[in-house]
């Protein structure tokens, strides 16, 4: 089992991690390398000041208009439309001058009863009492989501383009081969929690928003910088908000969405805009989804100490109760046979192995999860003083070849000597599965990592994209020759490496090391 004590010490402040080459992480002093990094078109910087933020929320615009009185019927109908049954009851209770006394009294009583029941329900599942913004922040894979300039990031699975969701609820699409960067804005696109490109498609981008799911169709050949909102499909289901996690099936046919408020997981047929709810009792919602690259399993974690592994052929599931807390994050090995996950409140990484053919999960699945890495706090002494690294884990990502595992450690925002940091492991599947230390990835002084993702088909190893708290997006390449080209499962071959596309941009970031 690997622990942080085996890691090389973190860099002194002022140094940034540039790349991995010849089996070690190389760093550089920030000034000249930053220039180099900024010269590459894919390294972006979004200063917080440049974003136009909403000064007031949508609901507050009501106050700007004159109040005009409608009849009780109109108001009741509007309340029914906007707020459902509770809204109607509220309206009746509040307009006690116009309705008979018994009606307002009885609706007040029903309302109180409903509130009591919902508070009881809320005490069972405490997360239900959160506001939707807080809930997204709580369950997002992004560290400190509400304060983040870059709220979501997604590489296209086949080409070198990516989508960035920003704090001002817009999404920008960057493509090194085209001069236009389309900006996507939509009335319903609020509090973006996740974005993901549809596999086996050039244009479709799914966006998890506060009240709905949006699927944008951004024509890659179009020169328009502001695609109209007609390019977006709106998928919504009553009670299914806020959406915090989405996952496309690797074959590109289905889209899964999950909300911590809703115990059903939706399977969308996006073209037909129809959905099949998959419901299981217990858990109080679904907070995080991850589809295995071979398409056979889906990890669905709930806000309580329980997660499920669905088998995608007949959509049956296996329950995995945790001891301590909810499953915070998880990732699959490229062949879909191994699942790594972390549990809130614990400082270890667990592994589950699925050896059997898909469809027979329940018969011979794994019996218990094994601990593969220990990330408890370790003190390193650096020239700047002691630094404590370790603790709880925010998210896990595994590169598409299954050779590098990046772990985002939460750290402690209050204490200066406990920064959030990315620890990278080398992974080895043969003869036994194990994690080996690789090193820490650090950015400029004062910037903490918020979000990370591996490039889906980088030719020379792995490419980790990190979004920092200061609005910078950088790419850290890991150059290595993989021991054996991973053999993908059949349905996983959308992820087959793509020979002809070698982005020159990534190489020039670190060419002076690559001699």
């Amino acid at each position: 089992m690997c622990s942080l004590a085996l890691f090389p010490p973190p860099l002194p402040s002022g140094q940034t991690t540039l790349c991995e080459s010849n089996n070690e992480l190389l760093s550089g002093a920030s000034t000249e390398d930053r220039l180099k990094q900024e010269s590459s078109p894919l390294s972006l910087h979004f200063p917080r000041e440049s974003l136009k933020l909403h000064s007031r929320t949508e609901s507050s615009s009501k106050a700007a208009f004159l109040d005009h009185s409608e009849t009780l019927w109109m108001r009741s109908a509007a309340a029914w439309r906007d707020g459902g049954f509770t809204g109607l009851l509220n309206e009746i209770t509040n307009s006690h001058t116009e309705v008979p006394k018994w009606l307002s009294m009885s609706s007040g009583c029903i309302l109180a009863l409903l509130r009591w029941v919902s508070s009881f329900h809320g005490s069972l599942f405490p997360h239900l009492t959160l506001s939707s913004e807080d809930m997204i922040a709580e369950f997002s894979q992004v560290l400190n989501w509400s304060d983040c300039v870059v709220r979501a990031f997604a590489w296209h699975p086949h080409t070198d383009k990516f989508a960035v969701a920003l704090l001002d609820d817009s999404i920008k699409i960057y493509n090194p081969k085209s001069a236009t960067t389309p900006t996507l804005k939509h009335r319903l696109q609020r509090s973006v929690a996740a974005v993901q490109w549809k596999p086996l498609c050039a244009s479709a981008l799914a966006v998890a928003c506060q009240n709905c799911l949006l699927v944008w169709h951004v024509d890659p050949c179009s020169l328009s910088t502001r695609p109209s909102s007609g390019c977006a499909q709106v998928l919504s289901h009553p009670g299914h908000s806020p959406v915090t996690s989405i996952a496309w099936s690797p074959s590109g046919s289905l889209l899964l969405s999950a909300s911590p408020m809703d115990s059903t997981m939706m399977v969308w047929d996006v073209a037909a805009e129809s959905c099949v709810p998959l419901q299981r009792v217990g858990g109080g919602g679904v907070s995080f989804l991850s589809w295995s690259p071979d398409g056979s399993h889906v990890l669905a974690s709930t806000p309580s100490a329980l997660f499920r592994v669905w088998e995608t052929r007949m959509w049956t599931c296996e329950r995995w109760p945790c001891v301590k807390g909810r499953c915070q994050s998880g990732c699959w090995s490229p062949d879909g046979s191994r699942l790594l996950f972390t549990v809130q409140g614990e400082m270890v990484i667990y592994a589950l192995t699925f050896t059997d053919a898909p469809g027979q999960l329940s018969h011979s699945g794994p019996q218990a999860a094994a601990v593969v890495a220990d990330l408890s706090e370790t003190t390193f002494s650096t020239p700047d003083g002691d630094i404590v690294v370790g603790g709880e884990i925010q998210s896990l990502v595994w590169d598409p070849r299954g050779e590098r595992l990046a772990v985002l450690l939460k750290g402690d925002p209050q204490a200066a000597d406990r920064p959030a940091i990315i620890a990278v492991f080398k992974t080895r599947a043969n003869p036994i599965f194990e994690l080996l230390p690789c090193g820490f990835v650090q950015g400029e002084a004062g910037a903490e990592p918020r979000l990370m993702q591996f490039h889906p088909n980088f030719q020379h190893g792995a490419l980790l994209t990190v979004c920092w708290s200061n609005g910078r997006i950088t790419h850290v390449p890991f150059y290595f020759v993989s021991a054996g080209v991973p053999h993908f499962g059949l349905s996983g071959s959308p992820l087959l490496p793509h020979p002809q596309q070698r982005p020159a941009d990534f190489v020039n970031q670190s060419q002076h090391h690559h001699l």
Partner: protein
Amino acid sequence: MLPPITLVFVIISKFSFLHPIQTISGHDVKIGIFSFILLCGVILIVGFLHLEYYTVIPTIACSKIALLGQLLHPRHFINSLVHCFMGVIVAWCCAVTMGLRYETLGYPCTESDGHPQMCLNEYHLILLLAGAFVGFSHSLLGVIYNMNYVSFHTVQQYKYLRFKRCLPLVVKCSATQALYSVRNYIVMYLFLGYIPRAWICKTLNLHLDSSVHPLDSIAGLLDLSLLYHLWSSATFLLLTWNITLLLFRIFVTEVYSFPVQSSFTEDSHQCLPKVLTEKQPMILKFLALQDLALLSQHSPSRRCEVFSLSQPGGHPHNWNAISKECLSLLTDLTQRLVAYHDTVATNGRAKSLSSGKDLMSPRPVFLMKTPASVFARSVAGTPQSPLTSLFTPDLDSPFASPALRRLTAPVDQCSPWYGTVQSPHIMRRAPKLWSTSTGEVEFQKSNISFSTHRSSNIQVLSNEVVKNFLAKRVLIMYLFNKLPEASSQALFADSQAHIWALEGLSYLVQASFSEDQFGVVQTTLPSILSCMLVLQEAVDRHFKLPHASSKPVRSTSSMGDSTYKTLRFALRATLKTAIYRITTTFGDHLNAVQISAEHRKRLQQFLEYKE
């Protein structure tokens, strides 16, 4: 097919037991059992009707008149009658179970002069008629909403789970549908209730009790308990039928795994390649295609059988049969799309106008009588009889030349008669114009001016005839106007088959990259690619037509399945994904495949992810 159906009935019969409408309190057990047996019989018949009438390809009416024709079709008419009759039986069972005042049709009463006789129990009658009405309206709605259409699901689930998921929806649908039909029924009974009552009294020699208030009055119908009982029995009726329908759908669409090849020759007709090529039971073909799509995704061992060679001879018979059938399906769709596009492109908007202009013919009565034939004629756009052609500046037929079109343009401006009379406002304005003789003369003049050879046909029309046909025109216009996007829906009505064919082919081709030992797929790869690309082009062109890409309104609260409305979008998405699946798997190797230059160019777009 039989075992699942019987299972349906077993489950259903259990269900009818579990649904006591009201508490059966202390009354005859014999009648209870009898009514239960009757209910089972009714459900058997309903199940049989579903079996008889179900379809995997929905029939889509392109205009209101076609829908009307469908409704009046003898087949559906018989269906409606049977439903009506069964509604009466179920209502009788309900009446017996409810007991109290609903139990019998007649009851002894004494007339004012003290003479004992049998009187009519109107409560019983109203319940029976309600059953008939609900049954009839159920079958009517079934035709309108394509309730006999069985759709397949994209997500496979076990039958029990699927049933559990759909059950609340069915209960909700039944309750609301019952509410609406009871409302309609009450209104109808209020006005027409005396007819069946008098008829029953006459035939059964029953008398009306003068002391009891008649029910076809507002006061009589505003009886809350009566309304509640009507509603609950209607809900019960619809619930049992809808659950039968639901179970039927679930069992019919269950995945069936066909063997790819059999070692015994007598079983060979059950093998996948054989079943795929058969035309007739459409459901079998669909199930086979579904199985193909699933096997190509999920089971390597069965894929292996597809790629295998025949033992003596070494021919890839399985693959050849499967790929040939799939390709022929896709080519068929391509041809259909191209043909449709050609007709639309040549006629342009004129075609839809011509169907509108038929309505101006002064023979509406005749039109009403033979809707089907006229409908066909209007679509074909053939020249009409002289009387008709007087009013139709047919832009598509004989006068389609551009010169004449220019000629007609000023005429359009001077009289609202010409051109596109589509909005009812203009039609309502029209009689004023016609009632004055000057208008008529003016019209005739203008008519002569641009088509002198027609002038001989002009007859003096009396105001009477004109008014007559104008009054009917609004209705006919309404009936004949094409429903938007219906033709597009009709084109893609059976696209589920094409979707599976695309999925199956693309997954098999993808798998062949690593699994196909003998290279059997490589020989057909060029034809598969070109077929998909041609289809892609045709689909792209189709979606540029008006109405083709407009989304249908989503209706959730009905038992009818509206999946067929979005099939064309699903097909478009699947097609693109299928091509990408192949290009992503093969990458640059595709440059070695022999296809035409045009297709290669298209393929390059896909290789660069620019589609």
